[in-house]
């Protein structure tokens, strides 16, 4: 008995001391009482096993609490909660550009608010924080990685991760793996190279640095005509990737090449822009890459979440990766080696000459931007964008907010093409949820949202949560797309919903405008 007690004390003592912290091993199998990373877990599925709220009772879902942010300063379109909150030990952490908040996940009470000083970086959006131990990590518009004390929001340090003077700007929620903080960068207006870095969680110093464009002599370097083009080739890394702990690979979607709309000075495939890449998380070395848009000229970065799942494909169980890419095509790969398995359009597109032997769409040169314009589907906004997709493993369905859009692409550069070197004139902006069967790429159902703009969440309660563009939050049957519940909030949902269970109560939390809205079943309130 004494031995047992002693053992119990020994076992629980460190746990008690660290109860509020987030140890790295927790991220390998997060509990349903938490949502500890941008995508909830490393797979990127945004699918929760929670089912207290389910298709049979969601009609009685009602408001649990609301939190309205204030004193956030920044003007313009950045002042919207585009971040996916993380939730750790009953506290939500979320952002807007230049701002981080900690809020009680049970009732929406503000715990602390951190403000970063005004700065010249692009303030288009901020997608969230990462947490490790007792520290919060976030990227600022002017590209510092900031570490905050999770207890009180006090700044520990800030370290530059990109040069704002070159028009980089940073929006991404970092990814924590073990003792690595993975950071990505954005900004494609001045032909800068993209890269990923791993930073030390304690010091913020660089552990490894991986350039989107291969170095001379490396595989892929031959896909650029010369050093000048390669050194100014773009390929930003602005969306949080996913991670397979068994393979120790991180998966990242890479942005479009530069100059954006003019391909003449960068003939070739332009690797690894518009690609999905797998890097060893400890070394930052490329293990494999797959380019979804060779030689892109339409701004269709492939930064959409590469979702990981294990499943059957043509009779064989595999470790899979799927992406509904901005270029309008859905891809399934074997994530252990990058082997291509499936390519299927999920909207009507008009820019390809077909699919090549590797499963890549072949760009039609006549649909490149031209001085008098080319009519192209999708627009540069894309068939999909950063709005979080979701995967329901029991249904085998991949859900994406898709846009059957058209745009006229113009080339405008006089003389040497630099920067965007052109632009497109948007025509229409439709948006629907599409449920794609990963085995065939076929769309099982479509649900109109009026436009595109928010991320998706699915749960084991056979539910899918989404926001439309008329200020509604809605839940549909995840198998059929039929609406089972909706409510009106003060603005359109701008982030992806999350869910967690505390004290036996399941919450669903969404960000809309400058507010968080939490929902729970009336019976549990």
């Amino acid at each position, binding site marked *: 008995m004494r031995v047992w007690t002693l053992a119990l004390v020994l076992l629980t003592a460190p746990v008690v001391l660290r109860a509020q912290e987030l140890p790295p091993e927790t991220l390998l199998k997060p509990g349903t009482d938490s949502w500890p990373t941008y995508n909830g877990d490393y797979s990127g599925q945004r699918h929760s096993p929670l089912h207290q709220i389910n298709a049979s009772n969601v009609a009685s879902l009602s408001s649990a609490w609301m939190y309205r942010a204030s004193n956030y300063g920044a003007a313009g379109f950045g002042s919207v909660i585009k971040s996916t909150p993380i939730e750790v030990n009953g506290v939500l952490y979320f952002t807007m550009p230049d701002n981080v908040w900690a809020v009680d996940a049970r009732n929406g009470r503000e715990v602390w608010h951190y403000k970063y000083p005004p700065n010249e970086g692009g303030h*288009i959006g901020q997608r969230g924080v990462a947490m490790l131990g007792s520290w919060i990590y976030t990227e600022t518009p002017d590209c510092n990685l900031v570490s905050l004390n999770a207890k009180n929001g006090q700044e520990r340090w800030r370290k530059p991760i990109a040069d704002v003077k070159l028009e980089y700007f940073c929006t991404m929620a970092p990814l924590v793996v073990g003792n690595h903080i993975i950071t990505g960068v954005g900004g494609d207006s001045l032909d800068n190279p993209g890269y990923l870095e791993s930073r030390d969680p304690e010091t913020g110093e660089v552990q490894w640095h991986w350039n989107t464009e291969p170095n001379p002599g490396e595989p892929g370097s031959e896909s650029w005509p010369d050093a000048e083009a390669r050194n100014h080739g773009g390929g930003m890394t602005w969306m949080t990737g996913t991670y397979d702990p068994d393979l120790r690979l991180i998966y990242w979607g890479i942005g479009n090449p530069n100059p954006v709309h003019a391909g003449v000075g960068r003939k070739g495939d332009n690797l690894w822009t518009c690609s999905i890449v797998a890097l060893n998380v400890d070394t930052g070395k490329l293990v494999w890459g797959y380019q979804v848009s060779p030689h892109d000229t339409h701004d269709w970065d492939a930064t959409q979440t590469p979702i990981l799942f294990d499943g059957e494909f043509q009779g064989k169980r595999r470790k899979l990766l799927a992406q509904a890419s901005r270029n309008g095509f859905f891809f399934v790969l074997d994530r252990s080696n990058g082997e291509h398995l499936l390519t299927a359009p999920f909207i009507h597109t008009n820019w390809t000459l077909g699919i090549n032997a590797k499963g890549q769409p072949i760009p039609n040169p006549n649909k490149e931007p031209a001085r008098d314009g080319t009519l192209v589907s999708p627009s540069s906004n894309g068939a999909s964008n950063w709005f979080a997709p979701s995967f329901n493993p029991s249904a085998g369905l991949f859900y994406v907010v898709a846009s059957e859009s058209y745009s006229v692409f*113009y080339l405008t550069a006089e003389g*040497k093409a630099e920067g965007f070197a052109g*632009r497109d004139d948007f*025509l229409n902006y439709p948006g629907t949820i599409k449920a794609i069967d990963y085995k065939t790429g076929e769309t099982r159902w479509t649900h109109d949202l009026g436009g595109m703009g928010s991320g998706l969440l699915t749960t084991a309660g056979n539910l899918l949560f989404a926001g439309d563009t008329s200020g509604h939050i809605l839940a549909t049957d995840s198998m059929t797309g039929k609406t089972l519940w909706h409510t009106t909030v*003060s603005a359109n949902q701008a982030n992806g919903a999350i869910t967690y269970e505390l004290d036996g109560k399941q919450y669903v939390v969404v960000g809309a405008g400058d507010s968080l809205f939490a929902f729970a079943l009336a019976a549990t309130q």
Partner: protein
Amino acid sequence: MSNRYFGAVAVLLLFASLSSGQADQAANANKQKPANGQQKDAPQKENAGDALAAMMGGAHIDKEAAERGRKIFVPACGFCHGNDAHGKSGPDLVRSALVLHDNKGDVIGLVIRNGRLERGMPAFSALSAEQIADISTFLHSRAADVSNRFAYKIGDLITGDAQKGAAFFHGDGQCGSCHSATGDLAHVATKYEPVELQRRMLYPAPNLIDVFLGRAVKPPAPTKVAVQLASGERVSGTLDHLDEFSVAMRDSAGWYRSFSRESVTVDVQDPRAAHEGLLAKYTDQEMHDALAYLETLK
């Protein structure tokens, strides 16, 4: 039938286009009524490109200083760096990290005054601090010209064959079934710049950048709607809003009326539906020809 027509599109996807292509739903914060895509109370701005650049964190450029700088730069530096600073035998200075870090000559001043003799750049020791500061402003203005795509000028659009365009208008395009060159489209080429005319021809909706900046825009043609109530009563009017859950209109007497879609049948006559149907059918040549034809309607 779909609710896409009025789905908060107005400002929504302008931001789609902003910056690194990170589509963003900027309109979320101020859920303004999106019907007709107008935002009447937004401030008037002169230059869409400048305003958007400012919101994106772009630098403010002193245009007079930049022009003074250009006049010094072209004869002194243009032979090697190009009159537009894009580089010739000397390096490109538009996307140069050195120049982008410069403030009024504090970085490039040394290089200009001392030259880089080992690389073949002579010293320009006679230039004053003010002149170097002006050159710096000129170079920053060149970087801003490149990085601010909303100020890019679209031109040279009229490449099609007007006769073939007329044939398309009356033939495959079936434009003539709703429009007339001597009626609603008379003198249309005098009302719009070619890029605006092209967009409106393809899909008649206001330019979202104009809408966002609160410029006067011609609203799209009103959409007619008829609602059949459970009682059998039929109410007609001009569509005000439509989404998955409700429909709203101005009835023939001008009253606002809304209905839950659970209990009514909705019939929308969207004048843009034919345009939308054509989007998937146009060849680029047909688009160019049709525009060339509309350009003859002076």
